[in-house]
């Protein structure tokens, strides 16, 4: 499905922030904002929901800890409880200090890597992905705010011109 969007270009992050607040106040839905670098407070101004990636990371860490405990309990205590240098392999708790470094590292490993993979999946990033930026300048020194048009082209153009946009384009866009 093709739809028309209006793209307002800005060349300063402060101007962009004010523009976002103005557009929000006028009750328009901002489709997307493209920035060359993170702009502090932009997510808040756009009213985006907070990320839950830290929560997933905590859960992945719990998985990693469980994997470490189950693995070492089976290998060192259940399967073949050898006497290695006099260490007490009678129960997991008796030999636990020796397992802590591995428990710790696997917790961190799972928490970090699975969280990164989650991030890639949720933000649709992979090696041969086609870049999505609407204008090459957005990776260098321009900011673009994109708003969908619903037969209100005039009104939107006027509003965005008033916010200090340096350029306004209207383009067809294929929604994914």
């Amino acid at each position, binding site marked *: 499905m093709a739809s028309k969007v209006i793209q307002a270009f800005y060349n300063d992050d402060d101007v962009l922030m004010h523009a976002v607040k103005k557009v929000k106040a006028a009750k328009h839905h901002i489709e997307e904002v493209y920035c060359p670098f993170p702009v502090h407070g932009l997510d808040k101004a756009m009213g985006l929901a907070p990320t839950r990636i*830290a929560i997933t990371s*905590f859960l992945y860490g719990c998985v990693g800890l469980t994997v470490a405990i189950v693995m070492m309990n089976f290998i060192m205590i259940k399967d073949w409880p050898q006497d290695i240098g*006099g260490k007490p392999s009678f129960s997991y708790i008796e030999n636990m*200090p*020796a397992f*802590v470094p591995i428990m710790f590292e696997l917790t961190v490993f799972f928490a970090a890597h699975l969280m990164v993979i989650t991030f890639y999946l949720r933000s649709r990033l992979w090696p041969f992905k086609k870049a999505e930026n609407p204008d090459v300048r957005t990776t260098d020194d321009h900011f673009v705010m994109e708003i969908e048009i619903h037969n209100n082209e005039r009104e939107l153009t006027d509003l965005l011109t008033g916010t200090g946009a340096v350029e306004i384009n209207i383009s067809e866009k294929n929604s994914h």
Partner: protein
Amino acid sequence: MYTFSNRLKIGSIILMAIGLLGIIGGFVMAPGTVEEAKAIVASHDDGHGGGHDAAASHDSGMEHGAAAEHDASHDEHLLSQLKNRPWAALYVAAFFFMMIALGVLAFYAIQRAAQAGWSPLLFRVMEGITAYLVPGGIIVFVILVLSVLHMNHLFIWMDPEVVAHDELLQGKSGYLNPTFFLIRAVIFLGGWIAYREYSRRLSLKQDESNDNSSFKLNFRISAAFLVFYLISESIMSWDWIMSVEPHWFSTLFGWYIFASMFVSGITVIAMVTIYLKSKGLLPDVNDSHIHDLAKFMFGISIFWTYLWFSQFMLIWYSNIPEEVTYYVTRIEDYNLPFFGMVAMNFLFPVLLLMNSDYKRINWFVVLTGIVILAGHYMDIFNAIMPSTVGNQWFIGIPEIGAILFFAGFFIFWVFRALTTAPLQPKRNPFIEESRHFHY
């Protein structure tokens, strides 16, 4: 300006009075003779009985004379442990509260040396807490002097008769001798107190001046103090804590004690700040400041655990007899306090303060802070008690009395110090940044 509220003042005086009664009670109840010591143990100890039976059957194999001698030396040992108990209780509590003030002083010096932009709003709170270092440090010093004067047996290496029969202690006497010990204590306390007083004066002077020279000088002496502090703190921990167990040694002990005092200090900063904020006295302190302090509490709690575990695991793993006795006595006689402390100092803060939102909820920070402080009291308890009272430990009247007394004294002194200057610095170059600090 802050005025010491009457309720808090009376509360702290009541704490001191009750605590003093407890301390005196502890000394009165301590046995004077072997017979009294035996009576105390017999009256409230069932679990220990098994050990006695085993010892008795073991004795029967010996010649009669040797057995009697063995019994007598056992009783002497028991008596000295029970005599130590009120002293050790007093020492643990005195050291614990002094350590909080010293931890805050280190945090304060770091904030100055790092030119942190968020914390200048809290400098007066920190300066108020470090005021306790002067009386608190002197009390600890007095206890050390009393030990040197043989009023107690906290440090067995101070007993010439013990040293005469102990080659290991003779070998260490170049370092562990009473004169040098007290000289070191004077140098450390003198250095800490001198920095505290000078930095405080410069901090107040900066408020009234029209240039930044006091601020810059304060920056430089804070950096210099940190060098002195790290060396003196390490040696202090060998002297005042590790030497109660003079046959044992550990290389990272100084860091371990540092982590304990640092996290307790930060916790107390957070709690005092939240208290003053709740009274409306720190209007510019916002949730982000509390959030930062809570992050420090969280991070340093993990750092403490890392050091605790590193020390424990290395010794457990290699299991060398001359090192491992330290942990053997703790695991056998202090099982619950020893491992309970790890739960209080690690699991509790990690699970409660991991969530970013919880770090901004004041009562949550206070609740976690109380557990952290209790946990670090237990940390010092576990460091001192096994070497001084052994398996005769208990958290009873002498221990609680000493905690209440020093808690009351700490509150009294800190809040009295807070009344002596405005709670918000005026001309600190970073004060604007600190007022607008937002995380």
